[in-house]
Each structure stands twice: as structure tokens, then as C-alpha cells.
């Protein structure tokens, strides 16, 4: 029983590390751009596919392919986000939300057009795990945990220690005041999209490293990633990290009590329940 609990906890943390890379970026863009970008998880898919193209099609070793893939995802994702969300003549959050659904449709099916709908894999061998009692982790899974932690820490440092971070936080608090005070909001938003796409595409690559990739992989993550971001208090990147951890753990722990087919529903219920008592999330501005 304890072994099983430990195992589920490890699984939950693994799931959380992938969710966090999506949820932190989502939360950041929500705070600054003030709308829920449904296409955000599709940036994960984008990173996975660009990496796949370099790795499996061109034959670049995975490490370099991942770097090239992230750059390619930035070159595609950031302009898409800038045009669709910053340049179109719309203002309301609902319009942007609907536009993001359109963007999600387009990204997914453009990838489907070029790569087909089938699952694909990076050219990496299957690994056996290191076994420490009930804890079983492969080298790639450990790499995933490390990369996710490093990136999340980097975002923390960026937000708290740099000028860009201060501007982003200022926009999130009060965009009008920020603009009046002379900050370059346009450039800050560009940086924000770049950070979001960077985090998401890295998450997508780690996902592909451990599992398989499909055009729908981003769409399938919409609800867990949003749950994590909302639970953490949407617009609050720190909360998103914690939210991802809660979602990952609750989802996996729940399988001890109820059939695992309900585990996605459990994540949703956790979020709904939390919002009933804390309408701005666990770590939202209160």
C-alpha cells in the first residue's frame, strides 16, 4: 500500500512537471494579455513536431534537434501569437478566446497536413528504469524532472530579478498605468510570447521523449493544463506550478479509491471544488 502510494506520487510529480511547463506559460500570458489562450497547449505540440522533424527526418542528434526544434517553434509560434492576439483589431477577452480556438484548429491541422495524423516518435532507445524501492525512474524521466525544475526556477528569477520581469508584473497589475509610465508594452508582450512558447515547446519535447507525439496531443492537454493554471490562480505563474503539482498528485492518488477512467474527471472536480471556496484559485490575488 505504501509502495503503491509512493509509486503514484512519483507518477503524479512526473505528470505535474509536464503540466507545469504548459501551465506556467499559460498563466503568464493570461496575466499579461488578459485572455485564456486555448491554443497554448498546441505550442507544446509544435515544439514536439519541430524537434521530430530535425531528429527523425533530418537525423540531427536529439540534443541539438531539441535546440533547433525550440528555435523553430519560436519562429513559428511567436509570430502566430503576435498576429492573432496582438495585431488583430479586437479588444474583448471573449473574442480573443474564440480566436485562440481558431488558432488551435489551424496549428493542429497544419501539422496534420505535413506530418499525418499518426503517432510519431523521436529516434531514442527505450530505457529500463533505475529502481530505488518503489521508486522507478528512467534517465529520461529524471532529465524531464530536472529540466522542468530548472525552467520553472528560471522563470521565477526572470520575473523577480530582471527589468523585463518587473515590467511584465506591472502590466499584469495595471496595463494602463504601465503604459502611461513609459514602459515598452509591445516589446514586453513579444518577450512574453517568446517565454510562453519556449516553455511550452520544451514541455512538448519532454513529452515526446517519454511517450509518443500526435497532432492532438496539445488539445488533449487543454483541460489538465487549464485546471492547473486556474487552480493556481490564473495569471499567477507561481500558482501554476503549485496547481500543476496538485492536479498531478490528486489525479494519480485518486486511482487508489476510484477507477482510473475517472482520473481526468477528478482533476476537473478538484478545480471546481477549489473555485467554489477560493474563487481566484488557491494562490490567486486575495
Amino acid at each position, binding site marked *: 500500500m505504501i509502495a503503491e502510494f509512493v509509486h503514484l506520487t512519483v507518477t503524479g510529480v512526473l505528470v505535474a512537471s509536464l503540466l507545469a511547463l504548459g501551465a506556467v506559460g499559460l498563466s503568464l500570458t493570461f496575466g499579461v494579455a488578459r485572455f485564456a489562450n486555448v491554443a497554448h497547449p498546441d505550442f507544446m505540440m509544435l515544439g514536439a513536431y519541430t524537434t521530430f522533424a530535425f531528429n527523425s527526418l533530418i537525423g540531427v542528434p536529439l540534443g541539438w534537434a531539441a535546440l533547433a526544434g525550440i528555435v523553430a517553434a519560436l519562429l513559428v509560434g511567436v509570430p502566430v501569437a503576435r498576429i492573432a492576439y496582438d495585431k488583430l483589431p479586437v479588444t474583448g477577452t471573449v473574442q480573443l478566446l474564440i480566436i485562440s480556438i*481558431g488558432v488551435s484548429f489551424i496549428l493542429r491541422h497544419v501539422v496534420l497536413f505535413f506530418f499525418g495524423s499518426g503517432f510519431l516518435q523521436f529516434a531514442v532507445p527505450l530505457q529500463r528504469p533505475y529502481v530505488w524501492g518503489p521508486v522507478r525512474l528512467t534517465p529520461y524521466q529524471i532529465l524531464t524532472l530536472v529540466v522542468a525544475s530548472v525552467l520553472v526556477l528560471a522563470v521565477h528569477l526572470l520575473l523577480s530579478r530582471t527589468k523585463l520581469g518587473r515590467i511584465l508584473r506591472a502590466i499584469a497589475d495595471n496595463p494602463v498605468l504601465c503604459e502611461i509610465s513609459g514602459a515598452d508594452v509591445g516589446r514586453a508582450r513579444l518577450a512574453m510570447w517568446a517565454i510562453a512558447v519556449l516553455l511550452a515547446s520544451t514541455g512538448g519535447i519532454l513529452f515526446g521523449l517519454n511517450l509518443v507525439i500526435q497532432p492532438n496531443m496539445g488539445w488533449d492537454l487543454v483541460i489538465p493544463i*487549464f485546471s492547473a493554471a486556474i487552480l493556481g490562480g490564473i495569471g499567477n505563474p507561481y500558482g501554476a506550478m503549485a496547481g500543476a503539482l496538485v492536479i498531478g498528485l490528486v489525479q494519480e492518488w485518486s486511482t487508489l479509491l476510484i477507477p482510473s477512467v475517472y482520473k481526468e474527471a477528478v482533476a476537473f472536480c478538484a478545480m471546481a471544488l477549489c*473555485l467554489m471556496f477560493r474563487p481566484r484559485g488557491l494562490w490567486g490575488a486575495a
Partner: protein
Amino acid sequence: MTEYLIALATIVGIQVLLTLGLNFHYGITGLVNFGHVAFYALGAYASALLTLAGVPFLVAMGAGVGVAVLASLLLGTATLRLGEDYFAILTLGFSEFVRLLLLNARELTRGALGIPGIPRPWRGLGGVPDHIMYLGLVLIAVGVAFALCEVLARSPLGRTLRAIRDDEQAAMALGKDVLRFRLTSLGWGAGLAAVAGSLWAHYVTYVVPDQFTPEITFYTWMAMIIGGPGSTRGALWGTAILVAVLEGTRFAKDVMPMIDEPRLAALRQVAIGLGLILMTVYVRKLGGRSRPRVAPATVSG
């Protein structure tokens, strides 16, 4: 061809009911409901299960409406106090939650096996061919729903809902119980969606959870946006155009044979995404009515 047009008209009619429901939510009241398909699914399943248990069609449909309205009230009570983005994502999650329940409550719904053999009501009555009979039934439902929506939109209720949509603070200041009115709106829209679900279940005679994915919700949003949110009449022709475009693109490949089928299918979805964006940007009614977001700090201050 005639049969195809009859089938299309039936599909359009059922979709119109869905659009009218969503128009009630978003167009009239400003509720960003991204889980519309949940009410559609509940209406379909309740009606299908009850009819197969021997309950008359209209009673079963009524029960479906009851279930959907009840679900909408529960959902609304839990979520309507939250910001509109939260509401949007929560409703989306709710619709997936409902689908998971239908998929896994196997004792009741047969889960992934689905429910085949749902009877069509009044089959062969008066010697009218089945599909024409059913189209008539759908058209009556649309007519009633349309009249109801027009009446409600012009009634004091409709006026209050629009007032809440345009300026929540002012409506509150006038002593309106905003939450209660929003719940009422949610219920009406959910009821219409349930009627659509019931009609769909008895039309295709088979329901399965796979039918009730969020895509239905998004298509309904597109239909409403094309027609112009807030306009009852717009819901009619917005839906007609949507179905014409969705079905019309099927014929594109009869004219464009050089791309292979799977790729063409992908392009079709890209076009749908692009269409959604362009409609949102260039259909003015939607653009002219955005509530300024209030910064979190000021609310909780």
C-alpha cells in the same frame, strides 16, 4: 438529392435549436458558455433511455429538458459568480466531465457501446414517409423555439438580461438579482439544447458518448457568430450558412482531386479555424460589446 436536402434541413433544424440556446446564453446574457454540448448530451441520453424504457416520446423529451436544466442550474450555482474566463473554462471542463460520466456509467448508459435502436416517434403515421415526418417534427420544434426566443427577448426578462450583459454594475445598482437572472438564462438555453439533443437521438437512432465532444460546442459558437450574437433571426441563417459551408466543403474534393483525401480533410479543418477567426474579427456585433476587464486587485482590494 431531395433526400439529401431533407436530411440537411433536419440537421440544420436541430442545430438551430442548439444555436438558439447558446444565443440565449451569450448573445442575450453574455455568458461565455463553452460547455453547451453537455446539455445536448444530457437531453439526448435522457430521452433515448426513457423512450427505450417505454416512456412516450414527448414525456421523455420533457424529462431530458428537465435533467439538462437541473444540471445547468447546478453548474451555474457553482460557477456563475466567477469571472467570465473561469466560467468559460469550467463549462468546457463540465462538458468533458459529462462525457466521461456517460462513457463510464456503464450500468446506465452502456458506456462506449452506445445505445442503438432508439425509436423514431410516430413512425409511419398517416402514411407520410419517415424522413419527411421527422423534418416536420423538427420544423415545429424550431418554430416554437423561435417564437419563444423572440417573445422572451422582448419580454421584461429579456430586457433585464441584456441590461446585465451590457452593464452588470448598473443592473445591480437597480436592485436586480444578477445571479438569479443569469441562472434563468442558463436554464432556458440548456433546455433548448436538450430539445435539440433529444431530436438528434431519435433522428440518428443511436447515441454514444463520442458524439458529444467539444467540437459541437465550437460549431455552435461559429453558427452564432456568423448570425450575429443576440439576434434570434441570425441564429437561423447563421446555422444554415455554417451547415452549408461544412457540407459544401465535402464537395470541394469532387472539384479538386489533386490533393489526397487525408490532407484535404486537414485543410478543411484549417479553413474552419481561419473562418472562425475572420468571423470573430469582422462580424461587428461581437466586437462592439466587450466588457472591460476589471483588474483582480481592484475586485478583491
